[in-house]
């Protein structure tokens, strides 16, 4: 499928390009918008990987929920001064080199393990219903992690309320 490849490289370029813009922009709101673009491009990649449900989760939860929260907080604390301040910290060069070293390490790891990768044997003509499959896995085999995740969310919710409250 040529179309598949074209779409993948388009989404990949979009994701990487706006990710770079995200970490380099001075304006935080612009950074958030670029991160949203990256997340949407990633959602497109999920769709190419036939993970429709994850595509929707990414759009509703990540883009429609978490990022709205981010932008909300950015607007609450919006500081005009921050546009004039220097945006990178003192250890930036060491940090960038270390990060690139980490990237190189992972690069080598993938290169070494590349032989054991294999494409999926055959894509069936009629795809299984992705939402049902995910639900079956989530409420069957992964029931305990699911419950733990719900407790995690509860804890996070209480934590956020306590943090945001002026007087506890």
């Amino acid at each position, binding site marked *: 499928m040529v179309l598949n490849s074209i779409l993948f490289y388009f989404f990949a370029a979009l994701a990487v390009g706006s990710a770079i813009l995200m970490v380099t922009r001075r304006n935080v709101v612009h950074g958030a918008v670029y991160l949203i673009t990256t997340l949407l491009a990633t959602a497109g990649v999920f769709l190419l990987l036939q993970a429709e449900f994850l595509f929707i989760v990414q759009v509703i939860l990540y883009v429609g929920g978490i990022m709205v929260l981010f932008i909300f907080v950015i607007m609450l*604390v919006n500081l005009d001064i921050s546009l004039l301040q220097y945006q990178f910290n003192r250890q930036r060069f060491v940090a960038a080199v270390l990060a690139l070293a980490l990237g190189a390490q992972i690069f080598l790891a993938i290169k070494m393990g590349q032989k054991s990768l294999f494409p999926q044997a055959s894509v069936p003509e009629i795809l299984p219903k992705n939402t049902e499959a995910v639900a079956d896995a989530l409420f069957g085999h992964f029931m305990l992690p699911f419950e733990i995740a719900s407790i995690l969310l509860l804890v996070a919710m209480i934590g956020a309320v306590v943090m945001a409250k002026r007087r506890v």
Partner: protein
Amino acid sequence: MVPVDQYLWLSLALFTIGVIGVLTRRNVIIILMSIELILNAVNINLVAFSHMFGTVDGQVFAIFVITDAAAEAAVGLGIILAFFRNRETLLADEMDMLKW
């Protein structure tokens, strides 16, 4: 069909950009957003492998990762709000009250 390693390269690129963002930026909100980027890069790997093996386990893990990201964002932004209220700053290297 796009080979699996292409997805890994994409994920690697996003991950590295995210790490650079976390380590070099001063603004806490940008740091939090870079962490989201890192989590997102991991998700691409999980879904790519899930596609490779023809199961949905990887996707389920990706859902857990997104849940975790939501929890982290909620608490992180709560901390940022509380901190901003006290110190009127968002810069990570000015958060040094424990160094006194």
